[in-house]
Protein backbone atom coordinates (compact mmCIF):
# COMPACT_ATOMS: atom_id res chain seq x y z
CA UNK A 1 0.00 0.00 0.00
CA UNK A 2 1.17 3.45 -0.85
CA UNK A 3 2.37 5.66 1.97
CA UNK A 4 2.17 8.76 -0.18
CA UNK A 5 -0.40 11.47 0.07
CA UNK A 6 -0.65 12.07 3.81
CA UNK A 7 -1.91 15.59 4.52
CA UNK A 8 -1.77 17.46 7.83
CA UNK A 9 -3.03 20.92 8.59
CA UNK A 10 -1.98 22.58 11.82
CA UNK A 11 -3.70 25.71 13.12
CA UNK A 12 -4.58 26.90 9.64
CA UNK A 13 -6.27 30.28 9.59
CA UNK A 14 -7.45 32.26 6.59
CA UNK A 15 -9.08 35.66 6.57
CA UNK A 16 -10.62 37.43 3.56
CA UNK A 17 -10.96 41.09 4.51
CA UNK A 18 -12.99 40.88 7.70
CA UNK A 19 -14.44 37.45 7.00
CA UNK A 20 -12.75 34.62 8.88
CA UNK A 21 -12.91 31.79 6.36
CA UNK A 22 -10.90 29.33 8.46
CA UNK A 23 -10.42 29.77 12.15
CA UNK A 24 -7.38 27.71 13.01
CA UNK A 25 -8.20 24.20 11.84
CA UNK A 26 -6.29 20.98 12.50
CA UNK A 27 -6.80 18.05 10.18
CA UNK A 28 -5.02 14.80 9.36
CA UNK A 29 -5.76 12.88 6.19
CA UNK A 30 -4.22 9.45 5.77
CA UNK A 31 -2.67 7.91 2.70
CA UNK A 32 -5.11 6.55 0.03
CA UNK A 33 -8.04 7.72 2.08
CA UNK A 34 -11.18 9.07 0.44
CA UNK A 35 -11.74 12.07 2.65
CA UNK A 36 -14.75 14.37 2.37
CA UNK A 37 -14.86 18.00 3.49
CA UNK A 38 -18.55 18.50 4.15
CA UNK A 39 -20.29 21.72 5.05
CA UNK A 40 -22.71 24.39 3.87
CA UNK A 41 -21.46 27.18 1.60
CA UNK A 42 -19.18 29.65 3.35
CA UNK A 43 -18.10 27.09 5.93
CA UNK A 44 -14.47 27.02 4.80
CA UNK A 45 -14.31 23.65 3.05
CA UNK A 46 -13.33 24.99 -0.37
CA UNK A 47 -10.80 27.36 1.22
CA UNK A 48 -9.23 24.33 2.92
CA UNK A 49 -9.02 22.51 -0.40
CA UNK A 50 -7.50 25.54 -2.12
CA UNK A 51 -4.90 25.82 0.61
CA UNK A 52 -4.01 22.15 0.15
CA UNK A 53 -3.77 22.75 -3.61
CA UNK A 54 -1.61 25.83 -3.13
CA UNK A 55 -4.07 28.17 -4.85
CA UNK A 56 -4.41 30.08 -1.58
CA UNK A 57 -1.92 30.45 1.22
CA UNK A 58 -2.96 30.47 4.87
CA UNK A 59 -2.53 33.58 7.01
CA UNK A 60 -1.43 31.39 9.88
CA UNK A 61 -0.65 27.73 10.35
CA UNK A 62 1.22 25.05 8.47
CA UNK A 63 0.41 22.48 5.82
CA UNK A 64 2.36 19.24 5.62
CA UNK A 65 2.23 16.73 2.79
CA UNK A 66 4.04 13.49 3.59
CA UNK A 67 5.76 15.21 6.47
CA UNK A 68 7.19 18.06 4.40
CA UNK A 69 6.13 21.65 5.05
CA UNK A 70 4.55 22.84 1.79
CA UNK A 71 2.59 25.79 3.21
CA UNK A 72 4.03 28.22 0.67
CA UNK A 73 5.07 25.84 -2.11
CA UNK A 74 3.65 26.82 -5.53
CA UNK A 75 0.79 24.60 -6.76
CA UNK A 76 2.88 23.05 -9.54
CA UNK A 77 5.44 21.73 -7.04
CA UNK A 78 2.93 19.82 -4.93
CA UNK A 79 2.07 16.97 -7.26
CA UNK A 80 -1.64 17.47 -6.76
CA UNK A 81 -4.37 17.33 -9.37
CA UNK A 82 -7.72 19.00 -9.03
CA UNK A 83 -11.12 18.68 -10.60
CA UNK A 84 -12.93 22.00 -10.48
CA UNK A 85 -16.64 22.49 -10.00
CA UNK A 86 -16.96 23.99 -13.49
CA UNK A 87 -14.28 21.57 -14.78
CA UNK A 88 -12.01 24.40 -16.04
CA UNK A 89 -11.33 22.60 -19.31
CA UNK A 90 -9.32 24.56 -21.85
CA UNK A 91 -11.95 25.43 -24.48
CA UNK A 92 -9.51 25.94 -27.34
CA UNK A 93 -7.94 22.49 -26.99
CA UNK A 94 -9.34 19.12 -27.96
CA UNK A 95 -10.01 16.49 -25.32
CA UNK A 96 -6.70 14.86 -26.24
CA UNK A 97 -4.81 18.15 -25.83
CA UNK A 98 -6.58 18.88 -22.55
CA UNK A 99 -5.56 15.54 -21.08
CA UNK A 100 -2.05 15.83 -22.52
CA UNK A 101 -1.46 19.33 -21.16
CA UNK A 102 -0.14 18.36 -17.69
CA UNK A 103 2.18 15.80 -19.32
CA UNK A 104 3.42 18.39 -21.79
CA UNK A 105 4.15 20.80 -18.94
CA UNK A 106 5.95 18.03 -17.05
CA UNK A 107 8.07 17.47 -20.21
CA UNK A 108 7.01 13.84 -20.63
CA UNK A 109 8.39 12.48 -23.95
CA UNK A 110 5.96 12.81 -26.84
CA UNK A 111 5.75 9.06 -27.48
CA UNK A 112 4.66 8.31 -23.91
CA UNK A 113 2.15 11.15 -23.87
CA UNK A 114 -0.03 9.48 -26.48
CA UNK A 115 -0.16 6.18 -24.58
CA UNK A 116 -0.81 7.83 -21.23
CA UNK A 117 -3.59 9.99 -22.67
CA UNK A 118 -5.28 6.93 -24.16
CA UNK A 119 -5.02 5.03 -20.89
CA UNK A 120 -6.48 7.87 -18.84
CA UNK A 121 -9.26 8.48 -21.35
CA UNK A 122 -10.10 4.77 -21.43
CA UNK A 123 -10.35 4.69 -17.62
CA UNK A 124 -13.14 7.25 -17.72
CA UNK A 125 -14.57 5.93 -21.00
CA UNK A 126 -14.05 8.97 -23.22
CA UNK A 127 -11.39 7.44 -25.47
CA UNK A 128 -13.77 7.79 -28.43
CA UNK A 129 -14.08 11.55 -27.91
CA UNK A 130 -10.40 12.55 -28.00
CA UNK A 131 -10.73 14.70 -31.11
CA UNK A 132 -13.63 16.77 -29.79
CA UNK A 133 -13.49 20.11 -28.07
CA UNK A 134 -15.01 20.68 -24.62
CA UNK A 135 -17.81 22.75 -26.18
CA UNK A 136 -18.92 19.68 -28.13
CA UNK A 137 -19.22 17.47 -25.04
CA UNK A 138 -22.14 16.91 -22.71
CA UNK A 139 -21.81 17.89 -19.05
CA UNK A 140 -21.03 14.33 -18.02
CA UNK A 141 -18.39 13.95 -20.73
CA UNK A 142 -16.77 17.26 -19.76
CA UNK A 143 -16.60 16.01 -16.22
CA UNK A 144 -14.90 12.81 -17.35
CA UNK A 145 -12.46 14.82 -19.40
CA UNK A 146 -11.59 16.85 -16.29
CA UNK A 147 -11.13 13.60 -14.37
CA UNK A 148 -8.88 12.18 -17.07
CA UNK A 149 -6.76 15.34 -17.06
CA UNK A 150 -6.42 14.99 -13.29
CA UNK A 151 -5.48 11.30 -13.20
CA UNK A 152 -3.21 11.23 -16.26
CA UNK A 153 -0.03 12.18 -14.43
CA UNK A 154 -0.75 9.95 -11.43
CA UNK A 155 -0.69 12.63 -8.74
CA UNK A 156 0.00 12.13 -5.07
CA UNK A 157 -3.19 13.93 -4.13
CA UNK A 158 -6.45 14.05 -5.97
CA UNK A 159 -8.56 17.08 -5.08
CA UNK A 160 -12.21 17.35 -6.08
CA UNK A 161 -14.23 20.53 -5.61
CA UNK A 162 -17.92 19.63 -5.82
CA UNK A 163 -17.30 17.74 -9.06
CA UNK A 164 -20.80 16.32 -9.30
CA UNK A 165 -22.82 19.43 -8.55
CA UNK A 166 -23.24 20.42 -12.21
CA UNK A 167 -24.60 17.04 -13.28
CA UNK A 168 -28.24 16.01 -13.34
CA UNK A 169 -29.50 13.75 -10.57
CA UNK A 170 -29.34 10.48 -12.50
CA UNK A 171 -25.83 11.08 -13.81
CA UNK A 172 -24.69 12.20 -10.38
CA UNK A 173 -25.61 8.82 -8.87
CA UNK A 174 -23.81 6.92 -11.64
CA UNK A 175 -20.70 9.08 -11.52
CA UNK A 176 -20.56 8.81 -7.74
CA UNK A 177 -20.11 5.07 -7.96
CA UNK A 178 -17.50 5.39 -10.70
CA UNK A 179 -15.59 8.01 -8.78
CA UNK A 180 -15.24 5.72 -5.81
CA UNK A 181 -14.16 2.81 -8.03
CA UNK A 182 -11.68 5.06 -9.79
CA UNK A 183 -10.11 6.25 -6.55
CA UNK A 184 -9.72 2.67 -5.35
CA UNK A 185 -8.15 1.52 -8.60
CA UNK A 186 -5.72 4.44 -8.60
CA UNK A 187 -4.80 3.88 -4.97
CA UNK A 188 -4.47 7.61 -4.36
CA UNK A 189 -5.53 9.99 -1.60
CA UNK A 190 -8.68 11.83 -2.61
CA UNK A 191 -9.98 14.94 -0.88
CA UNK A 192 -13.52 15.73 -1.83
CA UNK A 193 -15.39 18.95 -1.12
CA UNK A 194 -19.16 18.76 -1.07
CA UNK A 195 -22.17 20.36 0.54
CA UNK A 196 -24.20 17.24 -0.24
CA UNK A 197 -24.07 15.00 2.79
CA UNK A 198 -25.38 12.02 0.87
CA UNK A 199 -22.33 12.25 -1.39
CA UNK A 200 -20.04 12.54 1.60
CA UNK A 201 -21.71 9.64 3.40
CA UNK A 202 -21.57 7.29 0.43
CA UNK A 203 -18.13 8.19 -0.93
CA UNK A 204 -15.95 8.99 2.02
CA UNK A 205 -13.87 6.72 4.19
CA UNK A 206 -13.77 9.57 6.66
CA UNK A 207 -15.10 13.09 6.64
CA UNK A 208 -14.75 16.44 8.36
CA UNK A 209 -17.85 18.50 9.04
CA UNK A 210 -17.19 22.20 8.50
CA UNK A 211 -19.39 24.85 10.05
CA UNK A 212 -18.62 28.58 10.19
CA UNK A 213 -14.92 28.32 9.46
CA UNK A 214 -14.20 25.50 11.87
CA UNK A 215 -14.21 21.71 11.87
CA UNK A 216 -16.92 20.45 14.18
CA UNK A 217 -16.35 16.74 13.82
CA UNK A 218 -14.00 14.33 12.07
CA UNK A 219 -14.91 10.67 11.70
CA UNK A 220 -16.27 7.93 9.51
CA UNK A 221 -19.67 8.64 7.98
CA UNK A 222 -21.37 6.30 10.42
CA UNK A 223 -19.61 7.84 13.41
CA UNK A 224 -20.74 11.29 12.35
CA UNK A 225 -24.26 10.12 11.59
CA UNK A 226 -24.74 7.90 14.64
CA UNK A 227 -22.86 9.95 17.19
CA UNK A 228 -22.82 13.64 16.24
CA UNK A 229 -20.60 15.32 18.79
CA UNK A 230 -22.54 18.57 18.97
CA UNK A 231 -25.95 20.06 18.26
CA UNK A 232 -24.70 21.87 15.12
CA UNK A 233 -23.51 18.66 13.48
CA UNK A 234 -26.69 16.86 14.59
CA UNK A 235 -28.81 19.59 13.04
CA UNK A 236 -26.79 19.47 9.79
CA UNK A 237 -26.36 15.76 9.09
CA UNK A 238 -29.27 13.65 7.86
CA UNK A 239 -31.94 14.33 5.31
CA UNK A 240 -33.97 15.78 6.82
CA UNK A 241 -31.70 16.40 9.82
CA UNK A 242 -32.35 15.49 13.43
CA UNK A 243 -35.21 17.09 15.34
CA UNK A 244 -33.78 19.28 18.08
CA UNK A 245 -36.11 19.98 21.00
CA UNK A 246 -35.60 21.33 24.51
CA UNK A 247 -36.12 18.68 27.20
CA UNK A 248 -35.56 17.95 30.86
CA UNK A 249 -33.43 15.04 32.07
CA UNK A 250 -33.76 13.46 35.48
CA UNK A 251 -31.79 10.22 35.79
CA UNK A 252 -33.25 7.95 33.15
CA UNK A 253 -36.38 10.01 32.65
CA UNK A 254 -36.57 12.47 29.79
CA UNK A 255 -39.44 14.97 29.72
CA UNK A 256 -40.44 16.68 26.49
CA UNK A 257 -43.38 19.10 26.47
CA UNK A 258 -44.65 17.67 29.76
CA UNK A 259 -44.53 14.08 28.57
CA UNK A 260 -41.99 11.80 30.20
CA UNK A 261 -40.30 8.78 28.73
CA UNK A 262 -37.90 6.23 30.12
CA UNK A 263 -34.51 6.13 28.41
CA UNK A 264 -32.52 3.01 27.67
CA UNK A 265 -29.24 4.90 28.16
CA UNK A 266 -27.93 6.53 31.31
CA UNK A 267 -26.15 9.86 31.39
CA UNK A 268 -23.79 11.17 34.00
CA UNK A 269 -25.58 14.42 34.63
CA UNK A 270 -27.43 16.15 37.43
CA UNK A 271 -31.17 16.68 36.81
CA UNK A 272 -31.74 19.72 34.62
CA UNK A 273 -32.48 21.01 31.15
CA UNK A 274 -30.90 19.31 28.10
CA UNK A 275 -31.28 19.49 24.33
CA UNK A 276 -32.67 16.33 22.84
CA UNK A 277 -32.08 15.19 19.28
CA UNK A 278 -34.18 12.52 17.59
CA UNK A 279 -33.91 11.48 13.93
CA UNK A 280 -37.16 11.68 11.93
CA UNK A 281 -36.97 7.94 11.32
CA UNK A 282 -36.84 7.16 15.03
CA UNK A 283 -40.23 8.68 15.75
CA UNK A 284 -43.40 6.59 15.51
CA UNK A 285 -47.10 7.03 16.03
CA UNK A 286 -48.16 5.80 19.48
CA UNK A 287 -51.54 6.34 21.10
CA UNK A 288 -49.82 6.88 24.49
CA UNK A 289 -47.29 9.36 23.02
CA UNK A 290 -46.89 13.12 23.00
CA UNK A 291 -49.77 14.76 21.16
CA UNK A 292 -48.80 16.87 18.13
CA UNK A 293 -50.74 18.62 15.38
CA UNK A 294 -50.10 17.76 11.77
CA UNK A 295 -48.89 20.84 9.95
CA UNK A 296 -48.16 19.28 6.55
CA UNK A 297 -47.66 15.80 5.18
CA UNK A 298 -45.12 15.31 2.37
CA UNK A 299 -45.29 12.21 0.22
CA UNK A 300 -41.79 10.86 -0.52
CA UNK A 301 -42.97 7.82 -2.44
CA UNK A 302 -41.79 4.95 -0.27
CA UNK A 303 -42.52 6.89 2.89
CA UNK A 304 -44.15 10.07 4.08
CA UNK A 305 -42.63 12.93 5.94
CA UNK A 306 -44.96 14.40 8.53
CA UNK A 307 -44.33 17.95 9.72
CA UNK A 308 -45.75 18.07 13.21
CA UNK A 309 -46.26 20.96 15.60
CA UNK A 310 -44.90 20.15 19.03
CA UNK A 311 -45.43 23.25 21.15
CA UNK A 312 -43.73 26.02 19.18
CA UNK A 313 -41.34 23.68 17.41
CA UNK A 314 -41.83 21.90 14.11
CA UNK A 315 -40.85 18.25 14.29
CA UNK A 316 -40.33 16.02 11.28
CA UNK A 317 -41.27 12.35 11.36
CA UNK A 318 -40.69 9.77 8.66
CA UNK A 319 -43.35 7.08 8.48
CA UNK A 320 -44.12 4.24 6.13
CA UNK A 321 -47.75 4.09 7.23
CA UNK A 322 -49.87 4.60 4.22
CA UNK A 323 -52.93 6.01 5.92
CA UNK A 324 -54.06 9.45 4.83
CA UNK A 325 -53.64 12.24 7.33
CA UNK A 326 -55.45 15.54 7.32
CA UNK A 327 -53.82 18.81 8.22
CA UNK A 328 -54.46 19.88 11.81
CA UNK A 329 -55.16 16.33 12.92
CA UNK A 330 -53.74 15.34 16.31
CA UNK A 331 -51.07 12.67 16.03
CA UNK A 332 -49.52 11.24 19.18
CA UNK A 333 -45.86 10.40 18.72
CA UNK A 334 -43.26 8.44 20.67
CA UNK A 335 -39.57 7.70 20.15
CA UNK A 336 -37.43 4.61 20.55
CA UNK A 337 -35.91 4.98 23.97
CA UNK A 338 -32.42 4.04 22.75
CA UNK A 339 -32.34 6.48 19.87
CA UNK A 340 -32.22 9.81 21.68
CA UNK A 341 -29.12 11.99 21.45
CA UNK A 342 -28.65 14.44 24.31
CA UNK A 343 -26.64 17.64 24.21
CA UNK A 344 -25.68 20.27 26.73
CA UNK A 345 -27.98 23.25 26.12
CA UNK A 346 -25.17 25.69 26.96
CA UNK A 347 -22.15 24.33 25.10
CA UNK A 348 -24.06 22.28 22.53
CA UNK A 349 -21.72 19.34 23.13
CA UNK A 350 -22.90 15.77 23.18
CA UNK A 351 -23.66 14.18 26.56
CA UNK A 352 -21.89 10.85 26.78
CA UNK A 353 -23.66 7.79 28.04
CA UNK A 354 -22.32 5.76 30.92
Amino acid at each position, binding site marked *: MSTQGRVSLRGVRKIFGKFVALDGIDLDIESVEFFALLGPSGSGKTTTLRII*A*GLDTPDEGTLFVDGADVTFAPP*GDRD*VAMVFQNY*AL*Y*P*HMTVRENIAFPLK*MAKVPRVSIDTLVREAAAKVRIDHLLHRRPGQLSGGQQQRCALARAIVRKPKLFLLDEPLSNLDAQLRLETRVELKKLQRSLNVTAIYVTHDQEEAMTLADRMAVFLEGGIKQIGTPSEVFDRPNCVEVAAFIGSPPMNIVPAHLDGETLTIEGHSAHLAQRFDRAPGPVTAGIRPGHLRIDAQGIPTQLYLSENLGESSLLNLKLGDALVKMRTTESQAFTDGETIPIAFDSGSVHLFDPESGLRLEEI
Partner: protein
Amino acid sequence: MNTHQRARLTRNVILMAVAGALLFVWVLPLIWAFVVSLKSEREVLAFPPSVFFEPEFGNYVDALFGDFSIVDSLLTSTILATATTVITIALAVPAAYAFARLRLPGKRSLGFYTLATQMVPPVGLVIPYFLILNRFGWLDTYHGMVIVYLTFSLPFAIWLMVAYMEDIPWEMEEAAFLDKASRLQTLWHIVIPQVRGGIAVTVIFIFLNAWNEFLFAVQLGGNTVRPVTVAMYNFVSVEQTLWAKLSAAALVAMLPVVIIGIAAQKQIVKGLTVGAVKGGGRR
Protein backbone atom coordinates in the same frame (compact mmCIF):
# COMPACT_ATOMS: atom_id res chain seq x y z
CA MET B 1 -51.41 39.77 -44.75
CA ASN B 2 -52.25 40.00 -41.06
CA THR B 3 -51.35 42.87 -38.73
CA HIS B 4 -48.34 41.04 -37.35
CA GLN B 5 -46.82 40.50 -40.78
CA ARG B 6 -47.62 44.06 -41.80
CA ALA B 7 -45.92 45.42 -38.69
CA ARG B 8 -42.85 43.33 -39.45
CA LEU B 9 -42.76 44.49 -43.05
CA THR B 10 -43.09 48.14 -41.99
CA ARG B 11 -40.28 47.68 -39.48
CA ASN B 12 -38.04 46.08 -42.08
CA VAL B 13 -38.72 48.84 -44.59
CA ILE B 14 -37.86 51.52 -42.01
CA LEU B 15 -34.70 49.64 -40.98
CA MET B 16 -33.58 49.28 -44.57
CA ALA B 17 -34.28 52.96 -45.26
CA VAL B 18 -32.19 54.07 -42.26
CA ALA B 19 -29.38 51.64 -43.11
CA GLY B 20 -29.47 52.78 -46.74
CA ALA B 21 -29.30 56.45 -45.76
CA LEU B 22 -26.33 55.81 -43.46
CA LEU B 23 -24.57 53.72 -46.08
CA PHE B 24 -25.14 56.46 -48.64
CA VAL B 25 -23.53 59.06 -46.38
CA TRP B 26 -20.47 56.84 -45.98
CA VAL B 27 -20.17 55.60 -49.52
CA LEU B 28 -20.93 58.80 -51.44
CA PRO B 29 -17.48 60.39 -50.89
CA LEU B 30 -15.84 57.14 -52.00
CA ILE B 31 -17.90 56.96 -55.16
CA TRP B 32 -17.25 60.63 -55.81
CA ALA B 33 -13.51 60.14 -55.33
CA PHE B 34 -13.55 57.13 -57.64
CA VAL B 35 -15.38 59.07 -60.34
CA VAL B 36 -12.99 62.01 -59.93
CA SER B 37 -9.97 59.70 -60.15
CA LEU B 38 -11.08 58.60 -63.62
CA LYS B 39 -11.47 62.16 -64.97
CA SER B 40 -8.84 64.49 -66.33
CA GLU B 41 -7.84 67.43 -64.12
CA ARG B 42 -9.77 69.79 -66.44
CA GLU B 43 -12.97 67.77 -66.29
CA VAL B 44 -12.78 67.62 -62.50
CA LEU B 45 -13.18 71.36 -62.25
CA ALA B 46 -15.91 71.59 -64.89
CA PHE B 47 -19.16 73.14 -63.68
CA PRO B 48 -21.73 71.71 -63.77
CA PRO B 49 -19.88 68.44 -63.14
CA SER B 50 -19.73 66.31 -66.24
CA VAL B 51 -21.66 63.09 -65.91
CA PHE B 52 -20.60 61.55 -69.20
CA PHE B 53 -16.89 61.43 -69.85
CA GLU B 54 -14.32 59.00 -71.12
CA PRO B 55 -12.75 57.26 -68.11
CA GLU B 56 -8.96 57.19 -68.10
CA PHE B 57 -6.59 55.41 -65.74
CA GLY B 58 -3.69 57.78 -66.28
CA ASN B 59 -4.16 59.32 -62.84
CA TYR B 60 -3.43 55.96 -61.21
CA VAL B 61 -0.32 55.53 -63.34
CA ASP B 62 0.79 59.04 -62.35
CA ALA B 63 0.04 58.50 -58.66
CA LEU B 64 1.99 55.25 -58.61
CA PHE B 65 4.83 55.87 -61.03
CA GLY B 66 4.80 59.61 -61.81
CA ASP B 67 6.94 62.43 -60.40
CA PHE B 68 5.15 62.24 -57.07
CA SER B 69 4.97 58.44 -56.88
CA ILE B 70 3.40 57.18 -53.66
CA VAL B 71 4.94 53.70 -53.92
CA ASP B 72 7.83 54.49 -51.56
CA SER B 73 5.39 56.10 -49.16
CA LEU B 74 3.16 53.04 -49.22
CA LEU B 75 6.20 51.03 -48.17
CA THR B 76 6.98 53.55 -45.41
CA SER B 77 3.38 53.40 -44.16
CA THR B 78 3.52 49.62 -44.17
CA ILE B 79 6.75 49.58 -42.14
CA LEU B 80 5.43 52.15 -39.64
CA ALA B 81 2.03 50.53 -39.18
CA THR B 82 3.43 47.00 -38.98
CA ALA B 83 6.20 47.89 -36.53
CA THR B 84 3.77 49.84 -34.34
CA THR B 85 1.29 46.97 -34.36
CA VAL B 86 3.82 44.22 -33.64
CA ILE B 87 5.51 46.10 -30.78
CA THR B 88 2.16 47.20 -29.35
CA ILE B 89 0.79 43.66 -29.23
CA ALA B 90 4.04 42.23 -27.85
CA LEU B 91 3.93 44.70 -24.96
CA ALA B 92 0.18 45.12 -24.51
CA VAL B 93 -0.66 41.42 -24.11
CA PRO B 94 1.57 40.81 -21.06
CA ALA B 95 0.71 44.24 -19.67
CA ALA B 96 -3.02 43.62 -20.01
CA TYR B 97 -2.57 40.21 -18.37
CA ALA B 98 -0.83 41.86 -15.43
CA PHE B 99 -3.64 44.40 -15.11
CA ALA B 100 -6.30 41.72 -15.38
CA ARG B 101 -4.78 39.16 -13.03
CA LEU B 102 -1.95 40.21 -10.78
CA ARG B 103 -2.46 41.90 -7.45
CA LEU B 104 -0.18 44.89 -7.94
CA PRO B 105 0.09 47.87 -5.63
CA GLY B 106 -1.39 50.95 -7.28
CA LYS B 107 -2.94 48.88 -10.07
CA ARG B 108 -6.11 50.93 -10.11
CA SER B 109 -4.42 54.33 -10.40
CA LEU B 110 -1.91 52.93 -12.91
CA GLY B 111 -4.83 51.74 -15.00
CA PHE B 112 -6.38 55.19 -14.84
CA TYR B 113 -3.21 57.00 -15.89
CA THR B 114 -2.74 54.54 -18.72
CA LEU B 115 -6.13 55.49 -20.04
CA ALA B 116 -5.74 59.19 -19.16
CA THR B 117 -3.06 59.54 -21.84
CA GLN B 118 -5.85 58.93 -24.34
CA MET B 119 -7.70 62.01 -23.17
CA VAL B 120 -5.02 64.51 -24.19
CA PRO B 121 -5.81 66.10 -27.57
CA PRO B 122 -3.07 65.01 -29.99
CA VAL B 123 -2.56 68.51 -31.34
CA GLY B 124 -1.37 69.60 -27.91
CA LEU B 125 1.35 66.98 -28.02
CA VAL B 126 2.85 67.76 -31.40
CA ILE B 127 5.22 70.44 -30.15
CA PRO B 128 6.45 68.54 -27.05
CA TYR B 129 7.02 65.47 -29.19
CA PHE B 130 8.86 67.56 -31.77
CA LEU B 131 11.15 68.97 -29.08
CA ILE B 132 11.79 65.56 -27.53
CA LEU B 133 12.57 63.87 -30.85
CA ASN B 134 14.71 66.82 -31.87
CA ARG B 135 16.73 66.52 -28.63
CA PHE B 136 17.39 62.84 -29.35
CA GLY B 137 18.04 63.45 -33.02
CA TRP B 138 15.15 61.16 -33.88
CA LEU B 139 13.16 63.48 -36.13
CA ASP B 140 12.42 61.91 -39.51
CA THR B 141 13.46 58.43 -38.31
CA TYR B 142 11.46 55.23 -38.24
CA HIS B 143 12.16 54.49 -34.58
CA GLY B 144 11.22 58.04 -33.59
CA MET B 145 7.87 57.80 -35.36
CA VAL B 146 7.14 54.33 -34.02
CA ILE B 147 7.86 55.44 -30.45
CA VAL B 148 5.46 58.36 -30.86
CA TYR B 149 2.78 56.05 -32.26
CA LEU B 150 3.35 53.62 -29.38
CA THR B 151 2.47 56.32 -26.84
CA PHE B 152 -1.04 56.28 -28.31
CA SER B 153 -1.46 52.68 -29.35
CA LEU B 154 -0.16 51.02 -26.17
CA PRO B 155 -2.63 52.51 -23.66
CA PHE B 156 -5.49 51.87 -26.03
CA ALA B 157 -4.41 48.27 -26.71
CA ILE B 158 -3.85 47.52 -23.02
CA TRP B 159 -7.23 48.93 -22.10
CA LEU B 160 -8.92 46.90 -24.84
CA MET B 161 -7.10 43.64 -24.01
CA VAL B 162 -7.78 43.81 -20.25
CA ALA B 163 -11.49 43.43 -20.90
CA TYR B 164 -10.91 40.27 -22.93
CA MET B 165 -8.53 38.77 -20.38
CA GLU B 166 -10.87 39.42 -17.47
CA ASP B 167 -13.45 37.31 -19.27
CA ILE B 168 -11.40 34.13 -18.84
CA PRO B 169 -12.41 32.18 -15.73
CA TRP B 170 -9.78 32.14 -12.96
CA GLU B 171 -10.14 28.38 -12.55
CA MET B 172 -8.77 27.79 -16.01
CA GLU B 173 -5.47 29.39 -15.07
CA GLU B 174 -5.46 27.73 -11.68
CA ALA B 175 -5.89 24.39 -13.41
CA ALA B 176 -2.86 25.24 -15.54
CA PHE B 177 -0.80 26.17 -12.46
CA LEU B 178 -1.68 22.82 -10.89
CA ASP B 179 -0.64 21.19 -14.16
CA LYS B 180 2.86 22.60 -13.50
CA ALA B 181 2.56 25.44 -16.00
CA SER B 182 4.47 28.60 -15.15
CA ARG B 183 2.86 32.04 -15.32
CA LEU B 184 4.34 32.63 -18.78
CA GLN B 185 3.37 29.17 -20.03
CA THR B 186 -0.17 29.80 -18.76
CA LEU B 187 -0.26 33.11 -20.61
CA TRP B 188 1.03 31.48 -23.79
CA HIS B 189 -0.90 28.19 -23.79
CA ILE B 190 -4.13 29.08 -22.00
CA VAL B 191 -4.79 32.82 -22.04
CA ILE B 192 -3.58 34.02 -25.45
CA PRO B 193 -5.39 31.32 -27.50
CA GLN B 194 -8.61 32.33 -25.81
CA VAL B 195 -8.24 36.05 -26.51
CA ARG B 196 -7.32 35.58 -30.17
CA GLY B 197 -10.48 37.42 -31.20
CA GLY B 198 -9.56 40.33 -28.95
CA ILE B 199 -6.01 40.40 -30.28
CA ALA B 200 -7.34 40.47 -33.85
CA VAL B 201 -9.58 43.44 -33.06
CA THR B 202 -6.69 45.23 -31.37
CA VAL B 203 -4.33 44.54 -34.27
CA ILE B 204 -6.78 46.02 -36.74
CA PHE B 205 -7.46 49.13 -34.68
CA ILE B 206 -3.77 49.78 -34.09
CA PHE B 207 -2.79 49.11 -37.69
CA LEU B 208 -5.53 51.35 -39.07
CA ASN B 209 -4.74 54.18 -36.67
CA ALA B 210 -1.05 54.05 -37.58
CA TRP B 211 -1.83 53.78 -41.28
CA ASN B 212 -4.25 56.72 -41.25
CA GLU B 213 -2.17 58.96 -38.98
CA PHE B 214 -1.38 62.34 -40.53
CA LEU B 215 -0.83 65.05 -37.92
CA PHE B 216 2.33 63.61 -36.31
CA ALA B 217 3.67 62.20 -39.56
CA VAL B 218 3.58 65.59 -41.25
CA GLN B 219 5.33 67.33 -38.34
CA LEU B 220 7.77 64.70 -37.12
CA GLY B 221 8.53 62.93 -40.40
CA GLY B 222 10.40 64.29 -43.39
CA ASN B 223 12.03 63.08 -46.57
CA THR B 224 13.13 59.75 -45.05
CA VAL B 225 9.94 58.90 -43.25
CA ARG B 226 7.05 60.07 -45.36
CA PRO B 227 3.96 57.87 -45.00
CA VAL B 228 1.34 57.83 -47.70
CA THR B 229 -1.01 60.20 -45.87
CA VAL B 230 1.71 62.88 -46.09
CA ALA B 231 2.92 61.96 -49.57
CA MET B 232 -0.54 62.56 -50.99
CA TYR B 233 -0.12 66.19 -50.07
CA ASN B 234 2.31 66.54 -52.95
CA PHE B 235 -0.76 66.78 -55.13
CA VAL B 236 -1.87 69.85 -53.20
CA SER B 237 0.21 72.94 -53.78
CA VAL B 238 -0.20 76.70 -53.50
CA GLU B 239 -0.99 77.11 -57.17
CA GLN B 240 -3.33 74.21 -57.67
CA THR B 241 -4.74 71.01 -56.29
CA LEU B 242 -4.50 67.97 -58.56
CA TRP B 243 -7.86 66.53 -57.50
CA ALA B 244 -7.90 63.60 -59.87
CA LYS B 245 -4.42 62.36 -58.94
CA LEU B 246 -5.11 63.01 -55.24
CA SER B 247 -8.27 60.89 -55.49
CA ALA B 248 -6.41 58.11 -57.28
CA ALA B 249 -3.66 58.15 -54.63
CA ALA B 250 -6.21 58.22 -51.78
CA LEU B 251 -8.06 55.24 -53.20
CA VAL B 252 -4.84 53.26 -53.62
CA ALA B 253 -3.82 54.15 -50.05
CA MET B 254 -7.20 53.00 -48.83
CA LEU B 255 -6.93 49.61 -50.50
CA PRO B 256 -4.82 47.77 -47.86
CA VAL B 257 -7.14 49.04 -45.15
CA VAL B 258 -10.23 47.81 -46.97
CA ILE B 259 -8.62 44.42 -47.66
CA ILE B 260 -7.63 43.97 -44.01
CA GLY B 261 -11.09 45.04 -42.90
CA ILE B 262 -12.83 42.51 -45.14
CA ALA B 263 -10.40 39.72 -44.27
CA ALA B 264 -10.79 40.28 -40.55
CA GLN B 265 -14.53 41.03 -40.58
CA LYS B 266 -15.44 37.77 -38.88
CA GLN B 267 -12.85 38.19 -36.15
CA ILE B 268 -13.89 41.80 -35.57
CA VAL B 269 -17.55 40.94 -35.11
CA LYS B 270 -16.61 38.02 -32.87
CA GLY B 271 -14.18 40.12 -30.87
CA LEU B 272 -16.59 43.01 -30.47
CA THR B 273 -19.46 40.83 -29.31
CA VAL B 274 -17.47 38.97 -26.63
CA GLY B 275 -19.24 39.40 -23.36
CA ALA B 276 -22.51 40.37 -25.04
CA VAL B 277 -23.60 36.76 -24.72
CA LYS B 278 -21.98 35.21 -21.71
CA GLY B 279 -19.43 32.59 -22.70
CA GLY B 280 -20.78 32.54 -26.24
CA GLY B 281 -18.02 34.57 -27.78
CA ARG B 282 -15.12 32.40 -26.78
CA ARG B 283 -15.92 29.10 -28.42
